[in-house]
């Protein structure tokens, strides 16, 4: 009987070894290789460009005059410098908060309308926010991440983001760090990135927004933050809110210098 148990345990060990190596090499990497440059996000990128140049809202103007930090209408390389402080709004913004700001101030739209459905629900082929994020990320492809820490409010955001990252809460007593604070861990068969260090943060931060094969849509960095909150059973993280911007600032600063490779392709 005792021998049988020992055999059982060592067999389990062998299975777990196989599982771990599968998580690292991953048939998913093979899949990604097969897809090559054929990321379905390419369609969404084109749609995002159309959204940018199409007049909308009560003012019937496009987003062309939107200042993403590099001057009105400059889109190349702009995404790589988010989150950043904007003097006109007097706060630190991520891309989604900035787009919302432009939609409100330029197009005359309401925050209620913009927040009604920023991210795709089941059955949707994409939203305006997702398409714009995909296109703008693509406009920064290959550009190194530089999330400025010059302004006191930017440093404040990083500190808040770090605090949130390690803050345990909710019915599971989870923090972001519970899953993403150590190297070489996995959940089910997926490798978990250590987002508290440069390498893990760089790999994650530079590949969002991303086309999610399991959902058939492009998901944004803000959505990724919100979904981690949902997985932790925390209250809904509001798009562009200080908490969302803070977490993204923490990741962006940790990822400093890594080149944007978004939109990525995720499971």
């Amino acid at each position: 009987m005792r021998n049988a148990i020992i055999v059982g345990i060592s067999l389990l060990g062998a299975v777990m070894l196989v599982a771990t190596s599968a998580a690292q090499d991953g048939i998913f990497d093979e899949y990604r290789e097969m897809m090559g440059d054929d990321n379905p996000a390419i369609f969404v990128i084109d749609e995002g460009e159309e959204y940018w140049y199409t007049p909308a809202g009560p003012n019937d103007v496009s987003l062309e005059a939107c200042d993403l930090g590099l001057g009105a209408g400059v889109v190349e390389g702009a995404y790589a410098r988010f989150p950043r402080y904007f003097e006109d709004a007097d706060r630190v913004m991520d891309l989604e908060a900035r787009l919302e700001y432009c939609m409100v101030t330029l197009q005359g739209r309401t925050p209620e309308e913009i927040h009604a459905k920023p991210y795709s629900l089941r059955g949707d082929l994409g939203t305006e926010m997702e398409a714009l994020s995909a296109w703008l990320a693509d406009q920064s492809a290959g550009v190194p991440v530089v999330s400025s820490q010059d302004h006191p409010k930017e440093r404040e955001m990083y500190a808040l983001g770090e605090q949130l990252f390690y803050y345990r809460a909710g019915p599971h007593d989870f923090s972001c760090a519970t899953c993403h604070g150590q190297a070489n861990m996995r959940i089910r068969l997926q490798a978990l990135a250590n987002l508290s260090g440069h390498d893990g943060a760089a790999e994650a931060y530079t590949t969002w927004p991303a086309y999610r094969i399991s959902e058939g849509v492009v998901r944004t960095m803000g959505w990724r933050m919100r979904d981690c909150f949902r997985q932790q059973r925390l209250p809904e993280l509001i798009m562009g809110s200080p908490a969302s911007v803070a977490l993204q600032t923490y990741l962006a600063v940790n990822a400093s210098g890594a080149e944007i490779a978004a939109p990525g392709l995720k499971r």
Partner: protein
Amino acid sequence: MAGRIRIRAQQQGDHTEVKALMRHPMETGQRKDQAGQAIPAHFIEEVTMTHNGNVVMHAYWGAAVSANPFLGVQFAGGAAGDEVVVTWRDNKGETGEGSTQIR
């Protein structure tokens, strides 16, 4: 914005490799939306690939194929510069088309 196809065709020795990515929701009809209402079926039923006007592949698809499907096909007899066209028709009668030249 359904209907778009991104297509590439490359000559590899004695055969031509075609890769096509299609923009389509491929709804099965089995899913429900957030309000609990069934999302109507909407999927590609028929895919055709031609090489210089001749059909080299004809497929019947169904609800089991993923959203934004990715198609890979190899055929013999192609040469650089030849035209390859992929078309589809879905259960609502909508169509999509994409074409390229073999390189």
